[in-house]
């Protein structure tokens, strides 16, 4: 295995190709390749844990014309997010197992996993951009082909919004590469070699171009309007990948590209970006409070949660960076679990309004247990994973810009104010007229197994966060200001 990182992203892509030709048996191929991908990612995690000296795995390919070179690298940040991708991808395959879907469904999920792995591995900005955009294509089809009633609108909106951000990112990258060439006479897209000081007065323009591309993806208010539609209309597994991994691309882009290239500009932009992030936590929570659709509520809560991650990361303190990054994983697990459960409800009843259910706790105790557990993790109950990440992110922000941390803390409070009443309405309140609760059967063994896995991880991170924090810390050390 002289190309371990290439194999890592190529394996799911090969799986996507195989699935496309498997017809009715595609789900078995999807399971095999998802397990293979998860195994490879797990092996990489284990290698890194067992051998602390091996903090970075590099893979260099030939240089193409125009300084474009195939350059992959994996540090703990990349590996952690790839492991999250692989894990959630496997969860998605398991949770969609009994859906009546054609082979293309499984192909799309594997292609998406492959492109996401590529985003997290690429260190050449050309390849970074190519993988970044390539994630849109499978998700466009996942929403458009297997989404719910308003999927046509949501699919195109999702694609156009994120592509609009990327266009600015691409222009910023081109400006950067050209300026570097003018200053040094060398064509390169290598992230480590590029020097943004060559940009001179065009620096802020390029920085904000990059930030715009990442902010749409996160999404930061006011660029968030694609998210509620996309997350609500996507099939359950699609929402899991969207919220669980694709939102993380934005924060990852900041960590990997924008902050290292523009260390000073990004710090002086903290009041604006941090302010928007803090505003996102409050605004997202307020919007979530007003929703009557369970899935839409979770979608808005994602905007709020990503605000916490952003606050921590932008503070550039050690605990803020590590906490914000851990919160990326936490959000993937808790929101993933919540979206899956809403999906299970929707499969059974084709409803997902808050008022469509009531008294579910007595009909579906397992569902109630897992939903309650994930809700508590999501609102940051101490002892579960959300608390660790939010606490560290906010304490990081507190040491740099206290006002932002206070605003963020308000967001934490508001999270309880939308999540708990929603839980109460669905699971404890008596069923109202028009309730479809009697159609809901409790989770079966497969569904429970999926949720047990997710819940165990939430508990583990909550009780013993130290190894997780220690895992991410080396990759983020260089960003501490």
């Amino acid at each position, binding site marked *: 295995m002289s190309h371990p990182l290439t194999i890592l992203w190529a394996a799911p892509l090969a799986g996507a190709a195989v699935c496309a030709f498997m017809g009715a048996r595609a789900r078995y191929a999807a399971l095999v390749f998802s397990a293979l991908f998860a195994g490879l990612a797990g092996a990489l995690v284990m290698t890194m844990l067992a051998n602390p000296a091996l903090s970075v795995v590099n893979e260099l390919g030939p240089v*193409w014309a*125009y300084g474009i070179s195939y350059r992959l690298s994996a540090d703990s940040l990349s590996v952690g997010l790839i492991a999250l991708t692989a894990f959630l991808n496997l969860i998605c395959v398991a949770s969609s197992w009994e859906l009546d879907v054609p082979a293309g469904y499984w192909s799309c999920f594997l292609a998406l996993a492959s492109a996401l792995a590529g985003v997290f591995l690429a260190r050449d900005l050309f390849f970074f951009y190519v993988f970044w*955009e*390539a994630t849109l294509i499978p998700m466009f089809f996942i929403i*458009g*082909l297997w989404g719910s009633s308003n999927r*046509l609108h949501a699919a195109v909106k999702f*694609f*156009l919004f994120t592509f609009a951000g990327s266009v600015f990112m691409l*222009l910023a990258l081109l400006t950067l590469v050209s300026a570097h060439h003018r200053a040094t006479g060398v064509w390169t897209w290598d992230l480590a070699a590029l020097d943004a000081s060559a940009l001179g007065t065009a620096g802020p323009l390029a920085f904000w171009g990059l930030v715009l591309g990442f902010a749409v993806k996160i999404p930061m208010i006011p660029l968030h309007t694609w998210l509620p539609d996309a997350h609500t209309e996507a099939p359950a597994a699609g929402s899991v990948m969207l919220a669980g991994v694709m939102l993380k691309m934005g924060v990852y882009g900041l960590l990997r590209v924008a902050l290292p290239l523009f260390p000073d500009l990004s710090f002086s932009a903290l009041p604006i970006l941090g302010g928007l992030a803090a505003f996102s936590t409050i605004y997202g929570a307020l919007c979530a409070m007003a929703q009557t659709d369970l899935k839409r509520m979770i979608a808005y809560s994602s905007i709020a949660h990503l605000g916490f991650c952003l606050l921590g990361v932008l503070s550039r303190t050690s605990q803020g960076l590590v906490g914000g990054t851990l919160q990326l994983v936490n959000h993937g697990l808790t929101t993933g679990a919540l979206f899956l459960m809403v999906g299970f409800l929707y499969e059974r009843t084709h409803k997902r309004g808050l008022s469509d259910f009531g008294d579910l706790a007595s009909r579906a105790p397992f569902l109630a247990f897992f939903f309650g557990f994930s809700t508590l993790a999501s609102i940051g109950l101490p002892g579960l994973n959300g608390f660790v990440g939010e606490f560290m992110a906010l304490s990081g922000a507190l040491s740099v810009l206290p006002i932002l941390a206070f605003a963020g803390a308000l967001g934490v409070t508001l999270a309880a104010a939308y999540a708990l009443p929603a839980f109460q309405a669905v699971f404890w309140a008596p069923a109202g007229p028009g309730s479809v609760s009697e159609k809901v059967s409790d989770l079966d063994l497969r569904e429970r197994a999926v949720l047990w896995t997710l819940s165990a991880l939430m508990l583990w991170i909550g009780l013993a966060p130290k190894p997780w924090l220690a895992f991410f810390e080396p990759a983020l050390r260089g960003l501490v200001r």
Partner: protein
Amino acid sequence: MTMFPLAPQAALAAGVLGALFLGLLRRPPPLALRALALASIGGAMLLAVGLPADVYVSPILLTDAKTVGWQYLICLGALPLAYWLDGEDDVLSALFLGAVLGMSLLASAANLAMLFIALEFMSLPAYLLVARSRPGDSSLEAAIKYFFAGGVAGALFMLGLALYYADTRSLAASSALSPLGQAGGALMAAAALFKLGAFPLNWWLPDVYEASAPEVSGFLSTAMKSAAVLFLMRLCELAPEAAFIAWLPAIGAITALAGSVMALRQERLQRLFAYSSISNAGLLIIGVGAWAASGRSAEGVSAILFFLGAYAFMSNGTFAFIKYSGLETRSQLKGRGAAMPAAAAAFTILLFALGGIPPTGGFMAKLLLLWRAVDAALLWPAAAGALSALISLAYYLGMTRELWFEKADEPAAFKPGTGAALVVACAAGVVLLGAAPWLMSSISGGLLR
């Protein structure tokens, strides 16, 4: 092996005569015309391999790197139409090969007078090609419109040439221009922009592309557009002092945006792709402006060459899909994906490529071109080009949505025609260019070194 410098043109001329000869036979062998056209164009392509570099055949004809590169481009753009020549219309074949011969001569033109001759040589058969491509009045009307537009372009060029010559006493590159010479340069550039369909000289183009048979529109939007781009580039070389060169990026930016915006509301597919081709012409004009602004660099030529090469696959592929499927409007696309999965999937790839989504050749093409613009400090035209790509996504994604996500309005039986293989081949070509962009640059790089 070094070839006679006009060998490709000789192959094409032989094709024209051969087609007319086949028309004399009472019962020409079936598919003879198609075989003849493919052989003649393929032969021209092969013969271009051995062309000598930087040779003046005569004061009016030369071969340089661009001659060779465009010889390939023109033939690549023309091959699909040769594939569709499955009838027995010898005149149509002769007109088609004659137009290709004119384009091929344009690739070799060394001074302004020869440029004009080549321009008329490629245009006159094209008018008749449009008129003859489809039975009915609309194609005749479009051909007359095309003829008048082309006539205006020719007249502008002639007038410009006269003024330019009056100023410089030369038909080739010359230094400092008086206002008279500048006016001449501007008029000649207007002729080239007319041919490219630059805004606001684009009024004839959608009508022509809509009324012609789809495969002819594909030919016009690829081979003819490649020739027109080279026409503009030769003008920039032959009149390097002309003031119009500085205006090209702005004209291109406006054209790119206008084409994309006007395509948004089109319902008829051929008309939509006509506006899409105007938008792409805008990007190419930005590219030519960037190439001229950066001292006519080899990188600039190879970016334009790559764009046109990728576009030859994309545009021919989409028009081939229209021909194959027989669909005319966007609403007819609804729910048709399942009825022709291979061709529809290939068409989807082509749409994504036209929208500039990686990892397709369409993305590489747009990237290289906009990169040249950014590198030449033309940031605003580059941003406008990127914005036009974004706007264009609305209809490319819209068509994908109609094809796959929506249900058919009328569930009537639907039977696509033949030629799916060509659509798939074009999509494969554009994917290959995206996955292995060095293929094109290694072909063109050897030439441009």
